[in-house]
């Protein structure tokens, strides 16, 4: 008895040692490139540093400056505008596409691939072609608009009013397919028998959608919502290529502002403070959604 227990602990200890050996590469990389940087970013946000001079500790000075920074207020507003429009539209369109592409319509595999192509395309390349499409003098979009009789053609990226909508359109175009694929996978998890039973009970298509499909799909919707919100708060490449935050900061967003301060003005402390604000916003949104999910997400 005593001998076998001794043997067991020996095996368990060998297993433990093996586990840490298998974890070693990931632990080292995780510590160097994720864990320590997250902590450092927190500390850097309390300093003033341009990479060349001495590091100065400024306490919450950067955060106070952010609170008073008029451009930063505008940046937050722009980012909120972008998230509030692009996320709901994208989710609604993606759900509609998924529902239609789940009916067994002919050519549905082809459609799924086409709708998904923008997801795997580099955002820089996508933004370039869209910048060309939105070009207010020679672009295809304004050509099409004037063809259908629009005389007051929008200046798109050159106008404070239309620049953000242009970026939102491209973002929806690019991310729609991702949400659609997640919805399709979610729909396939709902058994056909549930629908058949409801149809036998006399439920119409709309009834089934509202009372069966939507509730059963809610875990997927929840996941799509969380992922889309986190992703939209980080919009950057579209801004960089299409507008460079202009005109007059009309399209300056959180990540673009972090990039500007950190890598164009070399204000590492200030940029880190802005990054911390981004982190807190994303965290708050995610936590609130986890709290709220009990009210509308049904796990089968």
């Amino acid at each position, binding site marked *: 008895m005593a001998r076998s227990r001794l043997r067991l602990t020996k095996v*368990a200890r060998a*297993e*433990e040692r*093996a*586990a840490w050996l*298998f*974890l070693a590469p*990931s632990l080292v*990389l*995780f510590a160097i*490139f*994720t864990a*320590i*940087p*997250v902590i*450092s*970013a927190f500390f850097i946000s309390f300093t003033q540093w341009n990479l060349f001079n001495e590091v100065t500790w400024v306490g919450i000075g950067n955060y106070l400056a952010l609170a008073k920074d008029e451009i930063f207020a505008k940046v937050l507003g722009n980012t909120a505008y972008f998230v509030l429009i692009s996320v709901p539209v994208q989710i609604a369109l993606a759900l509609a596409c998924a529902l239609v*592409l789940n*009916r067994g*319509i002919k050519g549905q595999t082809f*459609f799924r*691939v*086409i*709708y*998904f*192509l*923008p997801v*795997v*395309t*580099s*955002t*820089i*390349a*996508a933004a*370039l*072609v869209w910048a*060309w*499409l939105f070009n207010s*003098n*020679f672009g295809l979009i304004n050509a099409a608009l*004037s*063809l259908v009789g629009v005389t007051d053609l929008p200046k798109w990226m050159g106008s404070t009013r239309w620049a953000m909508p242009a970026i939102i359109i491209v973002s929806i175009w690019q991310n729609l397919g991702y949400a659609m*694929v*997640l919805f399709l*996978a979610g729909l396939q998890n709902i058994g056909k028998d549930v629908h058949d039973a409801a149809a036998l009970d006399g439920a119409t298509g709309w009834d089934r959608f509202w009372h069966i499909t939507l509730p059963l799909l809610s875990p997927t919707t929840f*996941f*799509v919502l969380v992922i889309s919100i*986190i992703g939209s*708060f*980080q919009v950057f490449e579209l801004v*960089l*290529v299409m507008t460079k935050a202009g005109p007059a900061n009309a399209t300056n967003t959180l990540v673009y502002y*972090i990039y500007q301060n950190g*890598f164009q003005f070399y204000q*590492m402390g200030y*940029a880190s403070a802005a*990054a911390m604000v*981004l*982190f807190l916003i*994303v965290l708050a949104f995610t936590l609130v959604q986890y709290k709220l999910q009990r009210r509308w997400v049904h796990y089968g």
Partner: protein
Amino acid sequence: MGKTATDWVLFVVLLVGALLMSGPFVWMIATSFKPAADVFQFPPTLFTADPQVENYLRIFTTIPFGRAMANSLVVSVLVTLLQLITCSMAAYAFACLRFRGREVLFLIYLAALMVPSQVTLIPNFILIKTLGWIDTYQGLILPYAFSSFGTFLLRQYLKSIPAELLEAARIDGASHAQIYLTIVLPLAKPALGALAIFTFVAQWNNFLWPLITTTKPDMQVAIVALATLQGQYNTDWPLLMTGSVIAIVPVLLVFVFGNRAFIAGLTTGAFGGR
């Protein structure tokens, strides 16, 4: 309206949608063949009367775009290989081995998924700069050699391997390294394939990190070279579109051949978690 009639209407709607989704690609390809002067016609035409195949040569002579494509390939392939190794090793420990602190460590790895990459950007940049790794392959590759996402994806998959199978191998005297190499990795091929395609595509399209850690044109990856090209030739739309076409072809190829595996990888996050 009967089911077939509804389906016909929806088919037409889908077709219009497909036109909107694929239109920018068609426009990109069409523009890439245009002579520089052609693009300033209004209204624009889709096809040019004078297709310029030499645009596809011009891009390689205007900037070191061939080198940039090679850099992208080297970085993306190496990052993918490294992640397959480090993530599968960690996933094996989390899914198949017992050790103290397993749940806590796994939670820490998962929590990292919530941290926006821009938070670690500045400290990592300072680190790479201090090490003198600006304009080096190690600077481009090593920060991406491990990912929490990959570990999570593989662990969910490895959990489905029956414990009896591994136990039997252990009783037969196989070491953990042997079990990992000869049983676990071969069984995990579908998940490894999904992770490989996902990582390759994400890395090829990665932009901000290579943008700030490279200064020499020779060390730029294709996507960064493309963005730089925009700064230098911002009205040469045929050239910009040529670069875009070339830069997205490798990813489209990988996607077309690995479509199923890629989507399996994307959806695991949504459905493997419970």
